């Protein structure tokens, strides 16, 4: 019997996941020191490897509440370089705007990272390769994905902590929509919406499951996210070796129930863990950092009883 792909291990035979929460943070803090200290505990196999950081740069964000903050991206890049990675690239395919340069200018990424020409990859315009999907939650069957994403050794999802008006929340799993190239599917990547957002999230993550996740929860977004909500101070970074466990933890920090978020609940069968007993929690406890996020009325059922 063929062995399942590494991303597709049933939850009952998957080893425990590790998630760390660090709090009391601001973008002006020494985030690289915090992340380095935290990631050392994970003993990640990145020495000599090419790492791709996939932040969430969904569109223009002059107020700094929609996209992963460039300070977090910079800190993550510094951290992986200190851990011995041979190259740390940043790749994103903004969903709503094809002028990626304009998006990067709006968040002042260059001020944090210096010249971007050698380290930033516009995944919307990258060369692509056909990938037959390993799961069939949606009717997509196959996707054309950027060669950069398929070719790196270690993939890190680097989203922002936000509510989402269709999916409930958008975290490290939903962030992977950004690897689907606009150059093949448009701006927005509407084929994914028509295939069913929840289902497409599962298929994409089964095809290119992030090896690690770092969530920018220092300032998140509540209400009508992912772009039209209100900013929400939360002051945390949540990191882990299982994107499903990281998303479940973030959801609990937001005062919501991951078991009731369709795609996270379904991801728990094959892609990772959501049950607290299967997640080794390090750093701060969830209860000590919990910050209830407002949600649209359509998602009132996601709220946990405090």
């Amino acid at each position, binding site marked *: 019997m063929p062995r399942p792909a590494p991303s597709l291990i049933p939850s009952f035979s998957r080893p425990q996941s590790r998630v760390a929460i660090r709090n009391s943070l601001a973008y002006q803090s020494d985030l690289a020191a915090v992340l380095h200290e935290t990631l050392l505990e994970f003993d990640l196999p990145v020495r000599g490897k090419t790492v791709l950081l996939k932040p969430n740069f969904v*569109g*223009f964000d002059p107020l700094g509440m929609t996209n992963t903050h460039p300070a977090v991206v910079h800190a993550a890049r510094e951290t992986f370089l200190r851990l011995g990675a041979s190259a740390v690239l940043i790749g994103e395919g903004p969903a*709503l*705007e*094809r*002028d*990626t*340069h*304009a998006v*990067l*200018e709006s968040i002042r990424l*260059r001020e944090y990272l210096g*010249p*971007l*020409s050698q380290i*930033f990859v*516009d995944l919307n*315009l*990258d*060369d*692509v390769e*056909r990938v037959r999907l390993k799961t069939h939650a949606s009717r997509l069957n196959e996707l*054309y994905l950027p060669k950069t994403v398929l070719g790196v050794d270690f993939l890190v999802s680097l989203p922002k902590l936000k509510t989402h*008006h269709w999916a409930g929340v958008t975290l490290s799993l939903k962030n992977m929509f950004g690897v689907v190239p606009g*150059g*093949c*599917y*448009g*701006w*927005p990547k*509407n*084929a994914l*919406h*028509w295939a069913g957002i929840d289902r497409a999230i599962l298929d994409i993550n089964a095809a290119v499951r992030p090896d690690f996740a770092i969530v920018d929860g220092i300032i998140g977004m509540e209400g*009508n996210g992912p772009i*039209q909500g209100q900013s929400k101070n939360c002051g945390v970074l949540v990191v882990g070796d299982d994107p499903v466990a990281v998303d479940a933890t973030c959801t609990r920090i937001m005062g919501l129930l991951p078991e009731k978020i369709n795609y996270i609940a379904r991801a728990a069968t094959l892609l990772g863990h959501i049950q607290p007993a299967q997640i080794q929690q390090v750093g701060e406890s969830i209860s000590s950092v919990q910050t209830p996020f407002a949600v*649209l009325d359509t998602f009132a059922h996601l709220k946990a009883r405090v």
Partner: protein
Amino acid sequence: MENTCLRFLLDTQNEDGGWGFHTGSTSRAEPTAWAVVALVEWASTQAHKDAAFRAFHFLDAAQLPDGSWPTSPALREGSWVTSLACLALLGQNEFSGKVKRGFGWLCKDLPGEAGLLHRIVRLFVARKKVGTQNESYFGWSWTIGTASWVEPTSYAIISMRATPPEWMSATAKRRLRIGEAMLFDRMCPGGGWNCGNPMVYGVPGEPQVSSSVWALLALREHPQRPEVQKSLAWLQGELNSIRSPASLALAIMAMNAYGRPHPLLAESLQTKYEQDEILWDVPEVAWAALALSSTQNWLKQKSNGKS
């Protein structure tokens, strides 16, 4: 400045006659279409003409049997790129048959929300609408069977407006009319357009330069419409804060198309290119070349397959 852009295009053309999005990447129909539109617009040297000629043949070979063009050679399904490939080949007699088939596909290709099933479903879920747009108006989608959006609709209209009038069937004229109505309907409350969501759950959408420019270019036959005037005013107000070369080039294009040239903008664009900033991609460079063209022939209607 235009020489810098045209030189870049000549230098980055692949052996197969096409262009990828970046130097050295695989040829695809969209960057090839934009490069050839820019080269034909200038066509000042034999090298430009030769490069364009090779590109025509790349586009010719990339067309699918149903008349459409895919986004990538590996894909076997039509897309928004069909409008751009038609635009690139318009005016070339040798390829008029190809263009007619392309337009035929565009006229037949309905977005998902125009389908019967979707319309029936909409009758029952009307109360749950998240936006304000009138869904009886539809334009063109990015990919087959998905919803109408501002940019692909604008590309199709720009292409149709450049088509010889005798090629425009009744269906084509109807699609053009409904597509324009869709664009007017999708304008953001304060003027300008984003990808196509003027309002979500009661919150007004923020307009974006690139989407606004494409919509304005598509609607340039209606310069007196209040929506157009309001959107031009919005764009005018944005001009000094645009920092990316692509958006700046597009903004110049729109202002030129409405007879409001702004020489300082062109200088600003030149400065950005001299700084050799990031993300030189082929469409962006082609737009810069088009922005600096004083004739804007690429937007004009062709007759009998010729400019």
